[in-house]
């Protein structure tokens, strides 16, 4: 055994002990509480997405003539294809939900405040990339709903003042949905956005490591509670357990509610009811409520506000008496998002 480790050590002069010391940062004790480990959840689900996505790409063909058939082949003919596709679909849903929950937790605990404004900004970029990945992935199936979802999405982008037509042309590779559109969505979904997400996650985690995790104390903690615990093995175990639970959950969801196939895209026939994926319900309802350019501009304004919230919050706390403004803004925002989502989910039109 010694000879083997010496042989490897000579050729790969990496010390496991030193590596452990380097990466073994103390983790604040509050991370023993499960909901504070939500940041690792989307990261884990993202790995699941990369793995299942690569598997799906072995059979998927990104062209209008073959896309639907290839997804059908994966779902109905390839061994375990239905399972891989269902896991991919459910992991996407859970990933977006986990990103949103993580963001809500960071928001209400004020963990975005100085000096962590940049990491909030990177987190917002990750949220946008995740939503875009969801949108482009939904379009790849080439079902009626995914085709019309993409068409409506492009038409919404078209109403943006000044750059609207440019955005639509860039999105669809032309002025309307054409044979080059799907490959564009595919490259965005399978290459550009995942690589961007990987880079953003790397920066996100590096910044967390550099600044350390925000520490919280809770009133119900006992007097002798230590301030920190070890990353190895304690926090790693926590993440592994979360990984296992997610795996069980994903397998169960994929088996009980497998991904199905809607009717194939028909550019000549608009479906009676067009719905995007659930995470766009809020935006879709907002558009229906306000319509046209105002809806686009107001959404842009809201997203801009979300990006810059740490600075706005800082200004409010310094120059006004609204010290807890963020809580109220958060509550109102969360309630609005939830109610618009539910409204869109239950409404037929």
């Amino acid at each position: 055994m010694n000879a083997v480790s010496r042989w490897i050590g000579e050729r790969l002069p990496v010390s496991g002990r030193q590596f452990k010391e380097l990466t073994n940062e103390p983790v604040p004790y509050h991370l023993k509480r499960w909901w504070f480990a939500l940041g690792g959840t989307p990261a884990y689900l993202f790995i699941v997405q990369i793995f299942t996505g690569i598997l799906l790409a072995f059979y998927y063909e990104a062209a209008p003539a073959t896309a639907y058939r290839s997804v059908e082949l994966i779902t109905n003919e390839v061994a375990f294809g239905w399972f891989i596709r269902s896991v991919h679909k459910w992991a996407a849903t859970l990933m977006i939900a986990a990103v949103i929950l993580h963001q809500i937790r960071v928001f209400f605990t004020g963990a975005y405040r100085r000096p962590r404004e940049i990491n909030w900004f990177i987190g917002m970029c990750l949220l946008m990339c995740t939503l875009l990945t969801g949108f482009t992935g939904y379009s790849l199936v080439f079902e009626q709903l995914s085709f019309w979802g993409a068409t409506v999405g492009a038409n919404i982008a078209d109403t943006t003042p000044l750059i609207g037509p440019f955005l639509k042309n860039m999105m669809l590779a032309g002025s309307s949905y054409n044979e080059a559109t799907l490959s564009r969505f595919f490259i965005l979904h399978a290459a550009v956005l995942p690589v961007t997400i990987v880079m953003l996650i790397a920066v996100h985690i590096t910044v967390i490591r550099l600044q350390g995790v925000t520490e919280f104390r809770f009133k119900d903690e006992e007097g002798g509670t230590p301030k920190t615990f070890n990353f190895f093995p304690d926090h790693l175990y926590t993440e592994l357990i979360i990984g296992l639970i997610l795996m069980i959950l994903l397998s169960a969801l994929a088996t009980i509610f497998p991904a199905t196939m809607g009717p194939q895209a028909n550019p000549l026939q608009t479906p009676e009811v067009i719905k995007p994926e659930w995470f766009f319900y809020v935006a879709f309802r907002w558009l229906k409520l306000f319509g046209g350019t105002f809806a686009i501009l107001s959404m842009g304004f809201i997203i801009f506000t979300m990006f810059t919230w740490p600075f706005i919050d800082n200004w409010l706390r310094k120059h006004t008496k609204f010290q807890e403004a963020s809580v109220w803004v958060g509550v109102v925002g969360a309630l609005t998002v939830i109610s618009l989502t539910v409204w869109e989910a239950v409404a037929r039109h």
Partner: protein
Amino acid sequence: MTDAHNPAASEGQDRRQFLGKASRAAMIAGLAGGYGGFAAISLRYLYPTGTDDRLWLFVTETSRVRVGESIRYRGPSGETINITRQARNGDADDFIALSSTCPHLGCQVRWEAQNNRFHCPCHNGVFDPSGVAIGGPPGDAGQQLSRYELKVESGLLSIAVPPNRLAGADQKGEILAADDETSGPGHDPCLSCQQIHDSRMARSEDPRSANRSRST
């Protein structure tokens, strides 16, 4: 503080150690089972699904092939097949469809009706009417010509061939002329070399081509 003389304390420690080990084992088993299972599923997913990868194509009317006669047929993937009639009962057993590619080095074998055998001109490989090698290098190696399934319906002969997955929807075969030295998979490398060699020899013997090659 643990007391070595306190049996209750040491029992508690034992229990804690046992639980620690048991939970670690459960964790490893869970990880190995869960992710190992997923890896197995992924491998099975990647392995091509075993569908019937054959295509039935019409070849000719049975009445157009006499007993002892052989036709050369090219499938959609380019493979050439000798279809030989050996009886006149009116069913598929009258015919035998054998690959015309010699299993020795890939030359094209020919049906010799007068000798009732398949013959490979490259290295004198000889095959009996059922495709089993009886002479030459393939005979020594115990090889045989690969066989294709046939069926006869209403006097029409059809053959099961591998489809050409790269050709799109247009899947068809063709009957080759008797003197068609075909190209494509299973073409005759030795004969091609021979032809090139012959043509070079002919050119070098031709004084006009010799002049031309000197001037260039």
